[in-house]
């Protein structure tokens, strides 16, 4: 007769003998975590509301235009806002989306002290800030490209000959991709830089939105009031419209949004101004985080 068998398994602490992947894996983890945080994933329902609402705010106009396009047919299409004009309206939800959500990626970690825990791992503080920036930038790209893509396809389908439309307007695609990227670059960097000033997300958001709104008001008021070439240059104060200038330059069209007076200013200057508005906050952000030592 066989003796009954029994075994006890060791579920105590086991040392880890597996792979240790190094900096790139850590950066990737940070990137994914950054994107998830911004979207509110894994953080309950309330955290998802804001990103969800804003994404809808961007999608809905695109969808509406598509529906209208399919109804009015070829003749009406040219009158509808197309990919070239989309950002003129979409910029506001994107600005708000970024101002409110981007700081979340930085302020929460500072406020609850998690940053110290990152810094004692095999990454550097520049890895951290680049990872956070990249996370939001990629998310913003998705946010600004998807509606444009839908709009483009929708309008395309609405036209009488889709292939002909595509052949004639294929260059719209790289244009809106570039314009979207320019917008995303702008709306990612400024809010994150603002978040470096304060630990409270609401203050960072208020700071950024405040700056944009004031710049809009002051810039346009001055430029309308003074007029002429001086007025054109003064319109550059409306920094929020800088991505729109880039958009218009890419699509080679006249500006007719706010800050349009600045159209007179030479292209090189406007491009330079845009680059300054992106590079300076970026540099500031980078320098601020390089010195952090928990």
């Amino acid at each position, binding site marked *: 007769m066989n003796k009954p068998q029994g075994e006890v398994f060791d579920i105590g602490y086991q040392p*880890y003998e597996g792979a240790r992947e190094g900096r790139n894996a850590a950066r990737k983890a940070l990137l994914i975590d950054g994107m998830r945080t911004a979207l509110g994933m894994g953080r309950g329902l309330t955290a998802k509301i804001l990103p969800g609402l804003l994404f809808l705010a961007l999608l809905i106009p695109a969808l509406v235009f598509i529906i209208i396009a399919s109804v009015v047919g070829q003749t009406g299409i040219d009158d509808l806002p197309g990919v070239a004009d989309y950002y003129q309206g979409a910029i506001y939800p994107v600005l708000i989306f970024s101002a409110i959500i981007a700081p979340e990626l930085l302020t929460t970690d500072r406020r609850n002290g998690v940053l*110290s825990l990152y810094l004692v791992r095999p990454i550097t503080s520049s890895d951290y800030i680049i990872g956070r920036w990249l996370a939001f930038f990629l998310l913003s790209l998705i946010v600004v490209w998807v509606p444009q893509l839908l709009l483009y396809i929708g309008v395309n389908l609405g036209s009488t000959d889709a292939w002909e439309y595509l052949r004639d307007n294929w260059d719209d695609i790289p244009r809106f991709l570039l314009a979207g990227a320019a917008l995303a670059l702008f709306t990612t960097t400024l809010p994150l830089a603002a978040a470096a000033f304060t630990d409270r997300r609401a203050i960072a958001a208020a700071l950024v939105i405040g700056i944009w709104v004031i710049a809009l008001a002051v810039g346009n008021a001055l430029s309308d009031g003074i007029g002429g070439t001086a007025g054109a240059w003064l319109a550059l104060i409306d920094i929020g419209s800088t991505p729109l200038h880039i958009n218009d330059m890419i699509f080679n069209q006249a500006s007719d949004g706010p800050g349009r007076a600045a159209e007179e200013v030479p292209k090189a200057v406007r491009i330079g101004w845009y680059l300054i508005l992106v590079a300076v906050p970026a540099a500031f952000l980078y320098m601020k985080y390089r010195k952090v030592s928990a």
Partner: protein
Amino acid sequence: MAELLQAAGLSKHYGSTVALDSVDFAVPSGITGLLGPNGAGKSTAIKLFLGLLEPTGGQALVMGEEPYSLPAARSRLGYMPEHDCLPSAITASEFLTHMARVSGLPAADARTRAADTLRHVGLDEERYRSIGEYSTGMKQRVKLAQAIVHDPVMVFLDEPTAGLDPMGREEMLDLIRRIGTDFGISALVSTHLMGDVERTCDEILVIDAGRVTHQGAVKGFTEETQTMYIEVDDRRDQLVAALADRGIEANGDGHGPLLIENLSDDGFDAIRDALVASGAPLRRLAPGRAQLSDIFKASGTERESGMSNGQ
């Protein structure tokens, strides 16, 4: 014993303030207590070994490498800060997994080790609840868990029992002891409580005014003395007399314990007989013992340098 941490001529200056003054010491494997007055260089030393600060002079080496300039050197280190450092909106499980990944563990391993580590620190179903809902004791456990999830060689624990009530403190100290003995992880425990050191540490290192003032095995600082202490619940005077009858001088003030110096081996029997003869109920008979706190009782000039970032 292998030297895990090494300070070689290590200095750190903040402007004109000298936090560490060209110190040399080595921390072996095992559990070492780091003691010293506030603002005297303790936290600075920890931050230098974690790579959070750059030395002004000399080197802080972790297993031979410099953690400040070489991020990879930090992969075998863990840190349990004193301050709050946990997010409140996510679950312990998710947080640990994320931290494990940032420490370089592949996704699947990160997940399983996170779950195992939380179990080992005593968090069971709670690990699926948001950290924001946790008590202080549970949060301390999560802090400890993220410090060991990647199986480090050494962890730095800064005031691990702060804010815990007596039972919580007891459990945390047991956990720390287990980390050393069962998990095979070395630890540097920075604390102000001698009780914490006595219960967990094999060695101590004392940093005062930027210098190392004491270092060595705990046992060396808590040796038994030559003095015998006797505590009785009653008939104390009768006992003193009975001892004197047998040629033993017992001193003591008021109602405190009786002290007998330089007892010979035969003296024990005399004590025993004196106890029986006097009918004094014996509460305690034991040699005196040096205390860790004696290190700090020796008078020294006040060394508060008052740096707010030296805390």
